[in-house]
């Protein structure tokens, strides 16, 4: 009795904590590890960090060569995201290496990489793992003699003012970024074999990547709009990665400075950097563009239960609820979600109709082919997490008693059989009688 009462008391006293920890209203603070070359960056880039903190991110600042740091302990990842603001690090302290970071991303966590000129091989290697190749020349920077930002030092065309921003409300928010984004750093190109990486901010066609201090001896390795300034990768497990060749883009100085593009008279009070990175930060950390599909259902018309198997030519209904996460779950509305009824190739391809409240549904007839089919929804939209839903369902042929018993075409045969029987009977009777 006493033991039970004690247990009950303990339970009662723990209950508030338990219920608090599972509350949907106050999600757990997400921990972000920020690795720096120099702790000064903490203050020089404070605006960017503050915007994260204001969105309930818990930032842990560490020096990149701190021997204490590690990404996982006892098989658990310690952080939800990682920011590498340490372009010149040769090797990390602690247990972090390229493989650890790749594993971090592969287990679904987000990553921001900012390089700089003189970026270390280490950072380049991580970028290569993500499908992005920085210019191999260590002293090269992106130079643009037409769309540079007007600055005090005449002839310095490495400070670019780019407005080649990807047009995507999902990635950069619905508010248009008016001012050009300032960039100063190294360019990168996208690996053509990687189709998950997307340019967010690209250089103008007149840009090239070379050493600004020396004369151009060889043609630059990457030129024009092949140069990406800021790229994002959304991995197959929906981990998001932001890669840029410029750490200074995130700095308070760039966030606050005015910008005037060369050859353009409009002078903006503020560069677009703050808005650009705040919005992009929201995207990278899954505050926007995160789709979730729930309640995937299919059943025969008129039946609510999901069958274990369909029959050919069954009429079925398929429905799925899709929500978008942007702070709260909201119904996702689109008219281009399609479902496939798939067995090695799609036999049925239907666009799902939505009720504007997140429910997508359609009805179709099972094709006249038996086999193991899949309901497949492959929804790839720029900026959104990939929806790749598949549900296996076998389709069987008719059972022996599901065919029509009497068909009109067979009536002559029925008649023939019956008349034969009758004739045989009469014949026998007559034959026996006459004997």
């Amino acid at each position: 009795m006493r033991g039970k009462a004690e247990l009950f008391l303990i339970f009662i006293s723990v209950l508030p904590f338990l219920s608090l920890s599972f509350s949907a209203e106050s999600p757990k603070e997400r921990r972000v590890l920020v690795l720096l070359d120099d702790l000064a960056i903490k203050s020089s880039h404070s605006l960017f960090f503050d915007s994260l903190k204001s969105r309930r991110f818990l930032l842990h600042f560490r020096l990149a060569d701190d021997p204490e740091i590690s990404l996982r302990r006892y098989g658990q990842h310690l952080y939800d995201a990682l920011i590498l603001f340490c372009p010149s690090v040769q090797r990390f302290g602690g247990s972090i290496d390229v493989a650890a970071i790749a594993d971090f991303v592969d287990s679904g966590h987000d990553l921001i990489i900012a390089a700089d000129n003189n970026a270390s091989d280490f950072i380049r290697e991580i970028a290569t793992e993500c499908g992005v190749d920085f210019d191999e020349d260590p002293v090269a920077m992106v130079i643009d003699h037409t769309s540079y930002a007007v600055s005090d030092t005449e002839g310095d065309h490495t400070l670019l003012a780019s407005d080649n921003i990807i047009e995507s409300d999902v990635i950069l928010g619905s508010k248009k970024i008016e001012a050009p984004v300032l960039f100063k750093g190294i360019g990168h190109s996208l690996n053509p074999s990687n189709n998950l990486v997307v340019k967010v901010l690209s250089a103008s066609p007149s840009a090239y990547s070379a050493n600004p201090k020396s004369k151009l001896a060889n043609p630059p390795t990457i030129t024009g709009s092949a140069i990406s300034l800021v790229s994002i990768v959304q991995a197959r497990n929906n981990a998001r990665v932001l890669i840029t060749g410029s750490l200074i883009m995130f700095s308070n100085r760039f966030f606050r400075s005015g910008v005037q593009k060369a050859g353009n008279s409009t002078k903006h009070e503020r560069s677009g950097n703050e808005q650009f990175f705040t919005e992009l930060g929201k995207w990278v950390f899954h505050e926007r563009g995160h789709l979730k599909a729930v309640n995937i259902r299919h059943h025969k018309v008129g039946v609510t239960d999901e069958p274990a198997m369909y029959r050919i030519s069954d009429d079925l209904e398929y429905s799925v609820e899709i929500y978008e996460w942007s702070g709260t779950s909201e119904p996702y509305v689109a008219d281009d979600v399609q479902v496939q009824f798939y067995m090695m190739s799609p036999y049925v391809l239907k666009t799902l109709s939505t009720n504007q409240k997140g429910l997508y549904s359609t009805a179709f007839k099972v094709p006249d082919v038996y086999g193991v089919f899949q309901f497949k929804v492959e929804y790839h939209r720029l900026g959104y997490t990939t929806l790749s839903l598949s549900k296996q369902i076998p389709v069987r042929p008719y059972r022996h008693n599901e065919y029509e018993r009497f068909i009109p075409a067979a009536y002559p045969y029925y008649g023939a059989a019956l008349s034969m029987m009758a004739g045989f009977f009469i014949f026998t009777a007559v034959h026996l009688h006459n004997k």
Partner: protein
Amino acid sequence: MVVGNAESMKSDLLSSLSIRWIKLKTKQQEVLIRVSILCLVYILAFISRLFSVLRYESMIHEFDPYFNYRTTLFLTQKGFYEFWNWFDSESWYPLGRIIGGTLYPGLMVTAALLYWSLRFLRFAVHIREVCVLTAPFFASNTTLVAYFFGKEIWDSGAGLVAAALIAICPGYISRSVAGSYDNEGVAIFALLLTFYLFVRAVNTGSLAWALASAFGYFYMVSAWGGYVFIINLIPLYVLVLLLTGRYSMRLYVAYNSMYVLGMLLAMQIRFVGFQHVQSGEHMAAMGVFFLMQVFYLLDWVKHLLSDTKLFQAFLRVTVTCAVGVGVIALGVGTASGYISPWTGRFYSLLDPTYAKDHIPIIASVSEHQPTAWSSFMFDFHILLFLFPAGLYFCFKRLSDATIFIVMYGLTSMYFAGVMVRLILVATPAVCLISAIAVSATIKNLTYLLRTKRKVSQTGSTEGINGAKASSKALLDRSQPFQKNSAIALLFGAFYLLSKYATHCNWVTSEAYSSPSIVLAARGAHGDRVIFDDYREAYFWLRQNTPQDAKVMSWWDYGYQITAMGNRTVIVDNNTWNNTHIATVGRAMSSYEDEAYEIMRSLDVDYVLVVFGGVTGYSSDDINKFLWMVRIGGGVFPVIKEPHYLVNGEYRVDKGASPKMLNCLMYKLSYYRFGELMTEYGKPPGYDRARGVEIGNKDVKLEYLEEAFTTSNWIVRIYKVKPPNNRW
């Protein structure tokens, strides 16, 4: 005279009475002996097939029996209608297989009935035990049928010998040991039963026997695809009888009722269905059926017409018309596609080289290879010599029945030469014909011995009937020599038959009782080593992989994976879709990245290969690999056999072709094998099955990872990695 007459009559009556008594007694004795011999043979046939259970355990053997076992289990659990309509989504992913419509249900239904009746009698048996013992049980029944068949075509002595011969004949035992739960187990019984009942129907002209043979035929059709042999042999037999002028009303009744009813019954089996009237293999029976009617009509007309000239004219016209109509019907039917042409399997029976050139999938099966002389000797032993002798006796006493057994023997011997596994079909005929030889010889010899004794007895006691006695005495003069030689020959026969018995016993225990799923070998100290790797791997699959995981392997292991591992397979031993098998063959013989694309398109989660390099197990996937290449290349011409050969030679060592050294099968078989020391005094990576050091010791896998390797490396399972996360 009168008195003497009366006396003699009285004594005759007395003697006949006493003789009748004695006769009755000897007849009883004979029946007693015959029944006890039959009982012993029945038991012998059963117990000599239990070696496998004693040596290993009560388990299902080989490959196909696992499918049969799985379906029987399903039948007993879900009932007949579910079984009949079973659509299996676990095999042939993603096509699936309509099991109810693509199997011969006879075996499963038989086993399920046995199981249910044992259950009804309150015997708490497991269905596996029933399945294991079904084949021996039916082998015992076959001996009974063989007895009656022998009695029908020769005499009861031949029947007894036939029963004894077939009970232990290795050719039959090879497919009917305990655990060999395959269609042939019951089909040989059904085959012999059908033939016996048909011969009986021809001999008696009885409608009842003909109907019984139709039902026997139905059972055969429900049990095995080999029924095609019956439906071609019987018309051939009828045709021979017609041509040799042995047409009779008995034949007419027997054949027509058997054919019509048998056809209707056979069409009830879903797997046969309309094939029975539409496919080329069955056309001979239909043609003979119509020919019979023409014959009957002619007979009737001959009976009506007294004028022979008129009849001759009529005959000419009718025969020409009938043949013309038949040829036209066949031509139109074939051209319009209503009559399907012969299948590849049928062609390969008639022309042994056909499969090798056209259907590699048939040629790749070891039991479809042409038979070697040694295996004839192995499976028949002395029957091989007794068979021609028996044929001689049959020809000496030609009757409808002996013509049948001669034809059965000759045709099945031809087919046995074409395919190893058809030795099975020839076995009953060989046993029966040999039994005739043995029985007739021994009977003649014993007759010689016994007549002499009788004559000497009558001579000493009575000494009357001068003329007869003198004639017998004349015969007797040559008999001492004959008697001795008869005794010698009898001893010879006894010696041969006992040799046969010991040979059969030895073959059964040594060669035909291995389950092939558990391997046994002799260890270094002469002890028995058991390799139970297959089951280890299948149980690993069952325990450690997701329920809906798809396993790709070469088709040989498909049935076992579904039955024991309970996982979905891409292809299995029911080789109905050549393209699907060729796709797997292509994946196995491609480079890893190409294979990865194929495996992704088939949703493959695991790949299973069988590898004998560590244990020296020679029937592994590397040795089967050229067939994968050939079958894959038959559909996908990008796969070319010469790429895997060096100067026409198949090798895995350093001299192997680069494509061979880097194809998926090679990599999966030899992954990390280069680090392993298999034999003392040999370099690491020494393949004991091929006896060479492998050529590519540093195998790197990019798209797959090793998931499980059994303790003796016989089965290796790899997991297909998901696509690269960041690319």
